[in-house]
């Protein structure tokens, strides 16, 4: 597994936790422990996202950092990865 794949898989796990906690909190907005967990995973995800984007380019079109080739560059999410 490449470094890129490793980071993406880890980021996917944080983001999945964020998505699901967010959905749970839609109907349980007063659940403090779920809200705490949400913030924890959001923080972890933000850090990892920044680390990923510095090494492998933007995940969001807003984070191009002046490099207009970075967004369009392969691989796209459906491309098969080496390794």
């Amino acid at each position: 597994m490449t470094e890129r794949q490793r980071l993406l898989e880890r980021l996917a796990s944080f983001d999945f936790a964020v998505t699901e906690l967010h959905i749970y909190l839609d109907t349980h907005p007063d659940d403090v422990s779920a809200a705490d967990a949400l913030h924890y995973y959001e923080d972890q995800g933000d850090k990892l996202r920044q680390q990923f984007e510095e090494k492998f380019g933007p995940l969001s079109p807003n984070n191009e950092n002046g490099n207009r080739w970075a967004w369009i560059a392969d691989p796209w999410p459906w491309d098969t990865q080496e390794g």
Partner: protein
Amino acid sequence: MWVYEKKLQYPVNIKQTNPKLAKIIISQYGGPDGELGASLRYLSQRYAMPYPEIKAILTDIGTEELSHLEMVGTIVYQLTRNLSIEEIKKQGFEDYFVDHTTGVYPAASNGMPFTAAALQVKGDPITDLHEDLAADEAQGYGQLDFPVLRQIKWWPKRSDHHKISCIMRHYTGFAHTIKQ
């Protein structure tokens, strides 16, 4: 509006092509209980929802279904790369190939193009939530009995997640708001 991220919700990296399997999995892309239908179902039903919690939940789930759609499309794409004519014929992929080559077309396994006829939007919250449960159950039972789909390790988990979360979110969530 929506914001795109250039990654899958869970990475997909298929090394062994399998067009026969792709023809089955494509139902989860554009079939009657596929991700496109799920997304459109939730995003269209939300307008009739009377409580903010339910508007939020249908928006968030409808959005998540789009990330599922992208994973399933990727699976179909990766299962059908670099096929030879012999492989296409041997694996029974000719009937799909003649119309779409290896393009990822939103259709059911039997070739029926994606249709909104398989979903319902009635403008009545209880009716619509029951319809959501029916669609998720169809997906869970129909597909888990298909051994070939167990080759994908997250499929049964995903389906369980769908069933449990659908019931928990929609039913208890809705009952919760009505009680208040």
